């Protein structure tokens, strides 16, 4: 295998594109963890639901994309909020392990229900022309997905940051991640803000799910498992609880994954192991991640 500059740049672009998708998912993990200290195991499955919603709206009902995409985001946000209300809210005051086990159960429930309802057979996703074509960027021909995913990711994250740092709801979310009880005493409707957080995270996951199914043009009920775990890894690497960190972590994981496969093709079977090894490494060496603040141990 010859390692020309061209190949490296090409792989780097692919890595950035994949990284953008991980970023969109990672933000959902990081926001929920930042506020509730809960790993939302079902987040990867919300991502799958987003992809399927878009698949049905566009591929089956033949709605145009400019309606389908916002509608998908809305419906997926509703799914996220429903999961929180049904499964996590009743356990807010309980030990965290209970919510964690419940999250594992919800994830398994969605996956298996998906298998039963839509069947295990993967289905082809209709890809809009802007994503299906390819562009000439200087000497490189770059697929449309590779160009648009990072651009859209940055736009969405930018919008989210404005929301988090420039609106009252965003202020409430930030306050919640500091101290739930104190925020409640300040007169904030905590449950509503948490619902809001789940809605935002799920909408971003839907965006990620749609673009994921453009990049690998198919949908299947188990498609959320590995992206979910890698996005979680990204959130940990970036510093869990930190939105910008999650975005950076997503790009890091995407680039590392593509580069290991691109530079060492004979080890491509181990790509998932690499990512998990990176996760374990980060947990041990710097559990608070790149941008995380050191966590205080409460006695």
């Amino acid at each position: 295998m010859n390692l020309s500059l061209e190949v490296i740049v090409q792989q780097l672009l692919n890595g950035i594109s994949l990284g953008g998708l991980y970023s969109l998912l990672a933000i959902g993990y990081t926001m929920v963890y930042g506020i509730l200290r809960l790993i939302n195991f079902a987040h990867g499955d919300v991502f799958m639901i987003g992809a399927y919603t878009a698949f049905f709206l566009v591929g089956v009902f033949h709605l145009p994309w400019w309606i389908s995409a916002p509608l998908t985001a809305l419906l997926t946000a509703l799914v996220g909020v429903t999961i929180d209300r049904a499964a996590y809210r009743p356990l807010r005051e309980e030990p965290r392990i209970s919510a964690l086990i419940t999250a594992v159960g919800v994830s398994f429930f969605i996956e298996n229900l998906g298998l039963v309802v839509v069947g295990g057979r993967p289905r082809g996703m209709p890809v809009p022309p802007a994503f299906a074509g390819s562009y000439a960027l200087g000497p490189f021909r770059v697929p449309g997905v590779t160009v648009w995913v990072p651009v859209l990711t940055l736009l969405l994250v930018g919008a989210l940051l404005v929301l988090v740092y420039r609106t009252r709801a965003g202020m409430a979310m930030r306050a919640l991640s500091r101290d739930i009880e104190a925020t409640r005493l300040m007169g904030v409707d905590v449950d509503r803000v948490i619902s809001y957080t789940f809605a935002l995270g799920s909408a971003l996951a839907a965006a990620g799910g749609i673009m994921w199914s453009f990049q690998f043009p198919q949908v299947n009920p188990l498609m959320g498992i590995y992206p979910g775990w890698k996005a979680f890894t990204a959130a940990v690497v970036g510093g869990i609880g930190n939105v910008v960190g999650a975005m950076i972590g997503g790009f890091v994981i995407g680039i590392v994954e593509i580069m290991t496969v691109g530079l060492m093709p004979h080890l491509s079977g181990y790509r998932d192991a690499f990512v998990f090894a990176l996760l374990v490494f980060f947990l041990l060496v710097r559990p608070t991640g790149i941008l995380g603040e050191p966590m205080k141990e409460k006695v």
Partner: protein
Amino acid sequence: MTTKAASIEPVREAPPLSPWTKRLLTLAALALLVGAIAYMEQPGFSPYYRRIANLAFIYVVAAVSYNLVNGVAGQFSLGPNGFMAIGGFLTTLLMLPVARKAQVFFLQPLVWPLSAFSVPESLSAGLSRLLPGGAGAALAMPLGFLVSLVAAGVAAAVGGLLVGVPSLRLRGDYLAIATFGFGEIIFVLANNLISVTNGPLGIRDIPEYANLWWTGGAAVFTVWVVQNLVNSTYGRALKAIREDEVAAEAMGIHVFTHKLLAFVVSAFFAGVAGGLLAALLTTISPSLFTFMMTFNLLIIVVLGGLGSTTGATVTAVLYAVLQEALRAVEAPMRLGPLFIPGVPGMRMVAFSLLLVLLMLFYRRGLFGRSEFTWDGAWHLTWRVARGVTRGLARVSGRAAGAARPPRGQ
């Protein structure tokens, strides 16, 4: 009114059981188990039910050991599937005849030391030199299986040590992710180290060594070891760690060593369970040890009550039976005019929903944290018996009530 009831029959507690009675009861229970196994091992017994019983025992081994980490020590681990995979593959590779290994590993040959020998064959050669006649060869098989199972357990325990030393420094969620990550790494390795595991193809036609004597024996042994550990000072320390790690540390408990001990013991039995499973199913592939396996065990220990060995044991058996019973859900049904086509996969939907509902509404599980004891059982039967006799007395009293003069006063 209260004095009236007290004056007739003072409430008597059950007389305490002597230690010897309890020992006898334990022996009787074991004898009953041996009898049941002997009955089920008869050639005429349904192989289907025998298979379920075998699986139940294997689930007991895996669930009781998993409960030691998750329930007793309170360390949420998600990686027992990895340890079961280690045990399963090692047992298979040690038991498989050398000639068969050459056939199975046609893509890439098996790595050297494992390709050169098979434990029963080597033992047979060695033992027949020592023991004249067929005695040595006859002994080689069961002895070889025992050696392989123990080796599988030890290998899994070493794996547990390697995983536990780094990850047990983490707590709560982070420990869960780290152990999950290690479990997945073991799964990826099993899929890719083709010269050890034959990759995703797996290994078929493993001779069926496991039977109810093995699985039942392993289950009893596991419960015995784990319960002795739980009831020792180590066990009390583990429970203290579960309740409050910082306080336990302050009380002078070396938290890390205790957690590690529980983790390694748990990994050992997970490895044994994996080995038994491989020898029962006679086929093994990495897909047998996905996260699904961990999920099954998680349901079992939560349903039984996190922290209760009794709970883990009882629900492991229930789960093995329920898994088969729920196949009915997947079969096509006709409810009057309504025809429901069979939906494969419905069982897992039911089980995952069960787990969520359990956590939401019945988090203590069937047994909470309580354990079965002869004293407890004795008090319970005493109370039930008293209730029954009183009830009978009341009923007969009412029948004869007209003839009897009113009491009291």
